[in-house]
């Protein structure tokens, strides 16, 4: 399959990731959505790397993305647990102390 297919998949996954963030009323879905988005970006990197000079740059960047995604997921989970303890709810709309 050509580059276009991979880019299409990446774009679709990206959109799904956004929708997942915005639609569900559970902070864990926000986490999952973020992972989906990051993965979509990864696909893009690797696809363009393969169909470009087939070198190292895109793949290296993808690796780093994965590393950072992992670090971010850890911290994010810690935050989610903290927020949950504070507001006693997993609904992100409950944590609206910044309202107005």
């Amino acid at each position, binding site marked *: *399959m*050509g*580059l*276009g*297919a*991979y*880019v299409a*998949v990446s*774009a*679709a*996954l*990206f*959109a*799904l*990731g956004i*929708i*997942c963030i*915005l*639609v*569900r*009323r559970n*902070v*864990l*879905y926000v*986490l*999952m959505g973020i*992972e*989906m988005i990051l*993965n979509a970006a*990864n*696909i893009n990197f*690797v*696809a363009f790397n*393969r*169909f470009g*000079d*087939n070198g*190292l740059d895109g*793949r*290296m960047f*993808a690796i*780093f993305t*994965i*590393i*950072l*995604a*992992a*670090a*971010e*997921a*850890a*911290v994010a*989970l*810690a*935050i*989610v*647990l*903290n927020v*949950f303890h504070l507001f*006693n709810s997993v609904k992100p709309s409950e944590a609206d102390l910044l309202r107005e």
Partner: protein
Amino acid sequence: MSETLLQRAFYGVLGLVTLAALGWGAATAGPAGVAFALFAALTLGGGVMCIWERSVVRSAFALMATFCGIAGLFILLESDFLAMAQLLIYVGGILVLILFGVMLTPPDLGERSLPRIGLGAAFVGGGTLWIAAKVAASANWATDSAPGEPTGNEAFSTAERVGVGFLDANGYVVAFELAAVVLTVALVAAVYIARRKRADLVAEPESGTMGGSR
């Protein structure tokens, strides 16, 4: 009752779409196409399922399917090391973290009703796709080769190449080191943020966190 009907209808549609995709893949590019279609269906289907599922646990596992599909796509893209790394880290690490989160939070019955920003979300998502389509339509997709045909340097396998790249002074050694620092910091930060406060320790009404998952 209509809930289950909707579920089944949805799954049916999803399956049909998957089959159609497989057929299309086969039709266009033979076995490579099928493989691609399979992994793409896995990825996107997993994403849809993740959004669609009412239960958080099931959504998490749908996400796992997505990760696996992406790993397959990496393999198809001649990035075996990356595929392995994807599986190891994402499925083995991040997904576990998410599952921990699921377990530590109360069960969420997941309302079916569309939240207030549903329209906005649809708009955003649709808009993204539309942009992508426009860009795609305007791009000149000059592809070098079909998948499965190696190009470029084969002297090293991807893993070796990545490893050499990590240690190469002209390459990514600085980034490598920084990544290590970041990980350390993230580790410390996660521990710190997630610590139990003294107040929680003293008066501890175990608010049903271990509600278990259904």
